[in-house]
């Protein structure tokens, strides 16, 4: 009997603490949001680029909302696990997912139980194009020379990417698609090893993001031949875009926030206002600049447009590479 009493007291104790944590409800308002902490699911490991963006954004947004923001890493499946969980979350706006370009590549490869239609985009904060990069002492001075060589020697030019079906693999495939060149695609386990292999002269080119090669370009070991963006980059004003060279390739990665598709619009707009304010803060801009990430703030509608376009483009490329799982 004595035992029981202790146990009961103990249980009561723990319950009351838990209850205390939960029952601090918000004030009465039209749409009562946020009622509790907002959780941002990051589908990649702590310490990576996506994680850093999410944490910097959460930090900048902490004054925008009446409740705290927590960043939770849910890794696995090249982002599939975290995004799948984000898509299935309760559609009350308290679980926000940091979605990345893999949202439209994984489903097309048959690797993910979701599509971009399962989400309602809130805001896009980042976009980075692919940058065709070679060694500084490579025989090719321009992108045309490089592509002409690749066309004359099909399958000879070794182009490193960050993994089969990853965005930089698709970027190289998009260049092939538009120019008729034929590369020897070499997948690496992430962009960094691919860049290292390029520095060591083991491959001929990479098609990763400018940030991932920037330090080596500045130190004179690598050179960027062209970037796959609409406009030239602020950081490398002398590097032409593919479009300028008459090759219509605009491809790259992006990051932003999204909620499950059934989330009410009023809540989405509260979230948008809050994170928009955060993304325009100097601290966040400074972070993005230092990290070499392209700041590109767009609203939900424009973000959805980009998802739609990329989804079509990647569906085609993934099929032509034979990466779609049957």
């Amino acid at each position: 009997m004595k035992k029981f009493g202790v146990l009961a007291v103990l249980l009561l104790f723990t319950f009351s603490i838990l209850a205390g944590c939960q029952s601090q409800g918000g004030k009465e308002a039209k749409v009562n949001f946020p009622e509790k902490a907002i959780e941002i699911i990051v589908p990649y490991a702590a310490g990576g680029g996506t994680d850093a963006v999410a944490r910097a954004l959460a930090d900048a947004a902490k004054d925008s909302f009446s409740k705290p923001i927590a960043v939770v890493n849910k890794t696995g499946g090249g982002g599939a696990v975290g995004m799948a969980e984000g898509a299935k979350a309760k559609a009350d706006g308290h679980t926000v997912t940091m979605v990345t370009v893999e949202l439209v590549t994984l489903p097309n490869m048959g690797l993910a139980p979701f599509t971009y239609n399962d989400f309602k985009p809130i805001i896009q904060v980042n976009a980075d194009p692919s940058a065709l990069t070679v060694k500084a002492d490579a025989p090719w001075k321009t992108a045309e020379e490089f592509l002409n060589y690749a066309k004359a020697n099909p399958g000879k030019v070794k182009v490193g990417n960050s993994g089969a079906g990853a965005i930089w693999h698709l970027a190289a495939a998009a260049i092939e698609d538009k120019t008729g060149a034929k590369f020897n695609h070499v997948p690496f386990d992430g962009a960094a090893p691919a860049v290292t292999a390029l520095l060591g002269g083991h491959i001929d080119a990479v098609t990763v993001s400018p940030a991932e090669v920037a330090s080596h370009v500045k130190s004179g070991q690598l050179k960027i031949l062209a970037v796959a963006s609409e406009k030239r980059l602020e950081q490398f004003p002398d590097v032409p875009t593919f479009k300028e060279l008459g090759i219509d390739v605009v491809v790259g990665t992006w990051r932003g926030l999204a909620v499950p598709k059934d989330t009410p619009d009023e809540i989405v707009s509260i979230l948008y206002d809050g994170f928009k304010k955060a993304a325009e803060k100097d601290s966040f801009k400074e972070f993005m600049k230092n990290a070499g990430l392209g700041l590109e703030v767009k609203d939900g509608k424009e973000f959805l447009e980009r998802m739609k376009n990329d989804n079509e483009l990647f569906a085609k490329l993934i099929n032509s590479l034979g990466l779609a799982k049957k």
Partner: protein
Amino acid sequence: MLSHLFYGLAKVLRPDIFLLLLLGVWGGIAIGSLPGLTATMGVALLLPVTFGMEPEAGMLLLLGIYIGAIYGGSVSAILLRTPGTPAAAATAMDGFEMAKRGEAGKALGISTTASFIGGIVSTLMLITISPILAKIALKFSAPEYFALAIFGLSIISSISGKSPLKGIIVGVFGLLVSTIGMDPMTSYPRFTFGNVNLLNGFSFIPVMIGLFGLAQALYNVEESEQAVKIQQKVEGVLSALSEIKRILGTAVRSAVMGTFIGIIPGAGADIAAFVSYNEAKRWSKHPEKFGTGIPEGIAAPEAGNNGVTGGAMIPLLTLGIPGDAVTAILLGALMIQGLQPGPLLFKEHGELVYTIFSGLLVGNVLMLISGLLGIRLFIKVLSVPKNILTPLIFVLCIVGSYAMNNSFFDVGVMLASGVIGYIFMKLDFPASPIILALILGPMAESNLRRSLIMSGGNYSIFFTRPISAFLLTLALITFITPFLKDFIKRKNLGN
């Protein structure tokens, strides 16, 4: 150069920065000794805290964590046979045996001193000859990585204890398990049965926690009836100091090896620990005693894994290429401060570089002092009655495997691995080969195939490149040595 170092030292000894470094080392030891919280994760978790700091302060905090955590993993490996980090899995083999004899204090003393030697030797190499060494990082391409992985795997035959056959079987089984998930070259999902959680394969940390920690705890439960209380000798520090002469050679050799492995991008402290252990055994006069709890068996992996700390910084600072997973995060930390690691860093921010050098030296000294002073405290864990300690270990295993990815799936993986590990333990199947296979399997496969893609399907690429040919030969020798020795011994016995 010396004047630069003194400048750096002055900066490190500034009270606020010194305090951060000390906190980093202490926090690192705590993080490292908790299963599931690795050095990588510790540094990643503290990274956002450094955003607002000045670059020197932030870097030294993170470096303190790095040094502390790589060392801290050995504490729980020795006391509980639960490696806090993968780098300490090799230490568990001899460390736990020694602790079982009541010499946990001595084991911890050896691991602390060896870790210190590893850290200091590699930092000195970093300071003095890093530009020369950095070139190694670029020499490694797919064929070399494949050869390195095969060399690492060849160690299985010598760490399998009583039955090499059983060791190799579980090793091959581990390699098979490592193929679960998206294929590295085509992203085709293998053996995933449509489960998204399996796309990246089994996470390696939960498997390790299960095979070592949970399995040992289950074993404790079984033994709890006739548990003999082992009286722990406390003269740890002193007895460890008396062992220094014995382990010095092994530790320095392992430290140098650790440094080299640290330089190679993508090969980190876990591989260094196993390779150092194996080499110590190869060069030992009494290799048969490895695995029974001898000082060299602790000193080698610990000096090797802490050797990686300085080694991994070499390509980071000189080339802007991270040498392992932790330095990859440090690269991000530097960039967020507006600094670009690479050849220009020495020219433009020489002061920061020398502050980092001095910070590594001071940090290792702090780790040595804290570690030696902490031994009495750490050992107290073992005076907790088993009926209480064992349940606490179970909770640590569960929390550790959950915290990695916030995933219940991983907890399930850990539990299943624990039960399998327990069965293996009962049947004399060693657990270390599985760990080695899970670390090196993906490295071997992807680099084999990457090499072939790069060479146009030509297998000769592995034998015409000197480093690769050398490592493959070494692998063959390593693999067959235990069998040859066994054969010779039997023949001698027969005569």
